[in-house]
């Protein structure tokens, strides 16, 4: 696990929103698996980390959860992105882009 990167606080919620935007409605386990796949070898995401964030986002109204069936026909809670969630995702995505551009300028050799 030496190559794993610790998650910066607040990033999981944006990852969840982006996953739901990309994949459409998905259950919590599916979201966690998808984030791990995208993150590749660099990260392992415990379900215990994802689950409270899902609940928080649902309480904030940026995602909505309903009981449905999984791809294996198991009863599961399926989450989808709401309009408010989409707006928030766009806003946070832009903030991240700005922030990473800012950091990149600082970190480029000879600039700081």
């Amino acid at each position, binding site marked *: 696990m030496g190559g794993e990167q610790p998650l910066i606080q607040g990033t999981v919620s944006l990852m969840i929103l982006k996953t739901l935007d990309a994949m459409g409605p998905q*259950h919590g386990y599916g979201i966690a698996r998808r984030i791990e796949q995208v993150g590749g070898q660099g990260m392992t995401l415990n379900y215990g980390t994802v689950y409270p964030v899902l*609940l928080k986002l649902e*309480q*904030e109204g940026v995602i909505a959860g309903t009981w449905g069936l999984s791809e294996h026909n198991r009863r599961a809670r399926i989450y989808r992105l709401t309009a408010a969630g989409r707006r928030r995702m766009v806003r946070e995505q832009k903030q991240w882009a700005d922030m990473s551009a800012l950091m990149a300028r600082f970190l480029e050799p000879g600039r700081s």
Partner: protein
Amino acid sequence: MSFLRAWLVRLGAHLRIGRRRNDIDEELQSAVDLHIDDCLSRGMTDADARRSAAVAFGPRQAIREAAYDQHSIPFIALLSTAFRQSMTSLIRHPGFCATAIAMLGIGVGLTAGLGATADALLLRPPAGLDAPDRLVRINVARNYVQFEALAEQSQTMEVTGTSRRTLSMGRGGDAGPLETACVTRAFFEVMGTTMAAGHTFAASDHLSTLAPPIVLAHHIWQRAFSGNSAAIGTTTWVAGRQYVIVGVAAPGFRGLELAAVDAWVLLPSSPVECSISGVSLLASSQGSWLTVLGRMREGIGLPAADAEARTIAQTWSTSGRPIESAVTPALEARATAGIRDRRLSLWVASGAVLVLLIAAANIGSLLAVRAVERRRELTVRTQLGASRVAVRFQLLLENALLTGAAGMLAWVVAGWTGSVAARFLPAIAYDPWSDARVLGILATFLGVAGMISTIAPLVQTSAGATTQPQSGRWSPGRARAWRFILVAQMTFAMVLSTGAVLFAMSLTRVKADVGYDLRGVIVASVDLARAGIRRQREQQEIFAAIVDRLREDPEVTSVALSSQAPLGLSQFYAVTPGGAKGAGPDRPSFSIVDVTPGYFSTIGTRILAGRDFTPDEVRSGASVALVDAALAGALWPHTEIAGRCMDLIPGRPCTTIVGITESRRVGSLRQTNLEAFFPLRMDGSTVPQAILVRPENPDRDALTRIATAVRTAAPNLPYVSVRLLEDVAGDHARSWRLGTWLFGLFAGCGLLFAAAGLYAALSFAVRQRANEIGVRMALGADSGAITRLVLGHGARIVAIGWILGVCAVVVFADGVNHLLFGVTATDIPVIAASSIALVVTGLTACLWPAWRAARLDPTVVLRTE
């Protein structure tokens, strides 16, 4: 906005937390199942898939609690969870809870109730007085003539006089006693008190002899007039006369009196009502019946007031001796008067503190035992993912619940013991149920108990305690500390049971050989002078009618009259045959009591030699008397006097001593009095004060019957006091009764608590050493040897506690002996009785653990280990 929305959703979720929890549990399970499905689809075996799920999800309890937290208001959720778990835990250990609550509640309650009593007697100044340190008692003035001289001449003080009487309030069957202070006009101004309603005595009140003024105490105003200010200006019947209510004193005000006062009347307006004899004493320059008090004026010190009082007193002092102390600070004089009650209250409060110490030691032991037993439970909970905050909070809440329950019990115990103490100690003037000091002491002790019991859970949940496996065994140091606590408990219990035995024996002895048959006699007192019947002949006729009426009762064995009520200290007056009449100063003072024939057999005073008066002697006016053995011994030692004519009262013809009676105790029952008995002649010369009745069955029915008979014989009497002589004696023995009652309670609690502590300690030790006991039994030790092992352990603690207890009793003996009667703290029977109580209780506590240890099955014990 989303933040606000999130909290609103949380609040909604918190209100339907049960349903959301089900959703969370189901969703978690669903995620685990999906993970297993996923693994199976990748070709894993079922066991590997489940193992992978266990690794991936980790401790599910932690996820669950984090999710629960997400759906609730955190503090409320923590509180409600902790409350639920605390209640479950406490209900699961009812014995521990009941013991801890009882010990803490009773220990703190007794200490608060009796600590406040001691505080009221020792520290608190009398209520409603302004600058009480400026009040003085003027010792050189003792009657109204002397008071008037002082009031007229004093430049340094404003002076008042007070004299206490029991009058009656109301008429006929509704009449009841009214504890009254007869005071001079400036009394309330000298005391510096403000009135709750109305006004103090005005200058013109001196003149109103038709309807004299009265000031009611606040509690009487509340009780009789429901606190209605319309009562001011109305009249009320007191001592057979109508009085005008002019004012109501401040709540709790009783002047400098130790006992409660119901009303104040103006002495110059009620001279007959305020006199012992029923004859006005205002103009008499003899006698000592008035307490004269003064308030030093601004800038005047005690020496100046003393010097002035001394100078003024020279005008009536005939002894020619220099006056020792003319003026004493009033609070000091009051404290001296109540010294016995103050000392008793101090001992009683000390006893309560000992009970509290035993209780505290026991609660400490209980918490320690519980801590050891709970370590495993706490460790498991922490390992399962419960946060340390949650565990700590639960433990704190458990202690808070226990302390709260104990606090309620303590309040009840404090109020109850305070009420009981107030009944025995009349100087206490506070409501023990709502007094701020009682509540303050309760809050302080419970706060300390709560804090101490808080430290234990914090230590239990310290970093190592809940994450490392615990052996459940105590270190030798801790075990030694525990043994020390147990020994201390036994020592305290021994001291308390000795106290109980001492007071019980004092009470028994103070009521034995008093010179009266306390149980067989009823005393009826009728104060006709205060009922407005002032002619002595008329008074005698009424008494004769009452006696005739009582003799008609077939249940009455004998009836007699006496010029003095038995045991009534205020009714005694001493005659010094010497002094003015010329005898030597070494002749003793004695009381003269006029009695009718049959008095001695009625009241149960034995005639040691000679006989009683005969009716002929009474009728003929013969000069005859009986004297008590002590007086006979003092006046005519080693002389046979029965039947001889002796010089009893100097300056008068000799008196034939027809008999010698046993000596009797008076007043406080502590000392005997010298008495001479003369015939009570119904010729109007002497007025009886008490009717003594010996019924066949001296019970409450007889009391009612005799009271009815007295009222029938003399209707329209304002107030008739009919009491068993035993009850009258009980009033005088109240300090021993209080001591017996409270130390009995302390000893009971102390022994019970100490036994409970020993029992808990041995039971715990048996559980801890079950393996060792199992090995011993496996190696051949029989159940008798195991019983002896456990009993021996307990017996050593009892024995050391007993030895230290006896040492403590010997050390403190001198301090308590003056409160006792006929017994000392170091008497062998006292030590023996309390030792038996301690040993029996202690060994009883050891029996059950010993029996349980002997019944352990070595195969089961060793396998469990």
